[in-house]
């Protein structure tokens, strides 16, 4: 305390701010512990009083994989890249898709579902959606471990491309947070958004190479298709883990759209967060 007193005191300046001014990275760094506490709270609380607990993180993608394998793999004979067995081909997309969907949904409702805290205490608001995303990474980690085991069991050899996987994971998170921040900011004003989100995620999964291969898209449409950042993410996951053909130039639209949505989503969020408690 004594040495703290010797320094000139920290000054907090309060006034009406414009959008970007509200982004205070230094302050977010100072409060990084809170990010972990909030994420830890989410993880602790989510599976309380459930029988399966974190088993749900495995069970959901597992059940999807079984149904997809039977319906799309066996009956409809959906073609895969490099003749990779359908169960592992689809699971490599189902697991990251589950992360994407849960981060998107959590981010879109993070402000409204934490209204109680946001109304009573200040901290950098961006920590709330970031903590929600971090908490979902725990589920992803568990499911991903199962996925790796499955790839091993199916006798697929890893290639050096696996080293690039973190980049595609980052692209996934940037996309999910970007769209989530947009939806979350709008949801403060228009609560219809939270009704729309589950439906949106389902529709979006059909527009992404989850149950089918991106190679099935007619070449003329591939660049348009690539505007969906999740197309780039899922192709990347398959490339890194299964050794399917590397994403070509169509990765760039995915990256550009993801970053653009992320930056504008942040801007929207920062704009809204200045006075959102007046409405929440």
């Amino acid at each position, binding site marked *: 305390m004594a040495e703290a007193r010797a320094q000139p005191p920290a*000054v907090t300046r309060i006034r009406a701010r414009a959008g970007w001014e509200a982004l205070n990275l230094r302050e977010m760094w100072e409060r990084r512990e809170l990010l972990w506490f909030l994420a830890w709270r989410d993880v602790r609380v989510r599976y309380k009083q459930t029988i399966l607990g974190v088993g749900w993180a495995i069970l959901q993608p597992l059940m999807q994989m079984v149904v997809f394998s039977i319906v799309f793999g066996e009956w409809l004979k959906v073609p895969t890249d490099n003749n990779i067995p359908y169960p592992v081909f689809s699971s490599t997309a189902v697991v990251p898709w589950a992360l994407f969907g849960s981060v998107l949904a959590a981010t879109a409702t993070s402000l409204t579902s934490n209204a109680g805290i946001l109304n009573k205490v200040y901290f950098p608001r961006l920590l709330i959606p970031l903590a929600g995303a971090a908490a979902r990474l725990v589920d992803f980690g568990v499911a991903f471990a199962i996925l790796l085991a499955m790839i091993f069991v199916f006798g697929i050899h890893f290639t050096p491309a696996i080293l690039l996987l973190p980049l595609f994971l980052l692209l996934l998170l940037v996309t999910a947070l970007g769209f989530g921040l947009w939806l979350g900011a709008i949801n403060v004003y228009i609560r219809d958004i939270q009704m729309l989100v589950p439906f949106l995620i389902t529709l979006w999964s059909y527009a992404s190479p989850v149950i089918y291969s991106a190679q099935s898209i007619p070449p003329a449409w591939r660049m348009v298709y690539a505007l969906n950042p999740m197309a780039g993410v899922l192709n990347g996951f398959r490339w890194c883990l299964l050794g399917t053909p590397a994403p070509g130039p169509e990765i760039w639209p995915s990256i550009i759209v993801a970053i653009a949505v992320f930056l504008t989503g942040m801007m929207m969020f920062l704009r809204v967060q200045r006075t959102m408690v007046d409405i929440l």
Partner: protein
Amino acid sequence: MSGAPPAISIRGLGKRYRIGSYLPTGGTLRGWFADRLSAKARAASAESNKPRYIWALRDLTLDVPTGSVIGIIGRNGVGKSTLLKILSRITDPTEGTAELYGKVASLLEVGTGFHGELTGRENIYLNGAISGMTRAEVDRRFDEIVAFSELEQFLDTPVKRYSSGMYVRLGFAVAAHLDPDILLVDEVLAVGDLSFQRRCLNRMNDVAQTGRTVIFVSHQMTAIRRLCNRTIWLEAGRIRDFGPTGEVVARYESESLGGAAPGGSGSREGAAYKARYLSWMRDGAPAGEAHVLSDLAPVAFRLVLDVRERIAAGYGGIEIFDPEGKLIWSGASYDGGRGDLALDPGKHALIYSLPMLPLKPGAYKLHASFYEREGRKLLDDWWAAPELIVSLPPSSHPDDEWQGILNLPCGLRVERE
């Protein structure tokens, strides 16, 4: 005090709220589509949704010297909480600026972010982190926090099984160990039992004694009087009055409890009556303090009785009730063998005098009656307005000033026997 550097410096602060729906369509997509589709619906919603604004706070300029404890009082909806929310950075102001020098902690709610499924121990860490403590700080003060909460045995119980009293104790225990330079406190002491409230106030008093700056919003005037050296009275988003706590609170109480009319209420003169009380004041009170008592000197109540017909033999009574409605004292005109009064028509002042009135601070009700001896006929029965505001500095032992009735300084001599 004015020499101290400011801890908080506020310049022209204002906050405007929009009333009604934020969006021009009631905030739903349905309304939005309805607006696009039908000109009639659009016209109707444009009419009903013309933005209407209210200023919850306006033109607030204020310097709070370091180490002072400032109370904020006012009726509901005058901007007290808005001010605290702006200073805590929960919401941005619409105009103006505020600068706070030092580490700021706000306590707008006890136990913010507590999760029922988590244990007491887990919630201490979570609430600490939300309120701005680091993990290391919570670790260091953990034992003190637990001791303050008196919840040692329940630390590993989920807080959803706590009673509301336990919940509040845990929340305040964390808040009490935040160690800020500036503490912003909203009405949080309304919860919890009496002894806990006392401990919280003592704790806040300790914080205030160590040179921290405290801003304290409350409706409990006793708490304000005890803690704050200066007090702001907010009205309709502006500063109505700012000064030493005793004076501001007394003015606030006399206005808000008694109505603005000081004394003489003409309305009581209307109907036919034989005798009626019109007004009261403290006999010989200085201007502006006619209904305020702020010392232990002899005190006299001057009741104005309007007599319309001669009363050959009558008598009056006077009672004082405390804020809870309990009778504190009563007297009568014939006490001490004075006998009955004979009053000619006209206005008379009945002056009841007391050697002193050592009451703890608060708003007391005066009740006066007047009877005719013959048939003990009640001529008037009056709850005096405004009320009597007692604003003596509390002189009981600090631990007990919330209880008890009398407010007297005690002397002591020690003699060898």
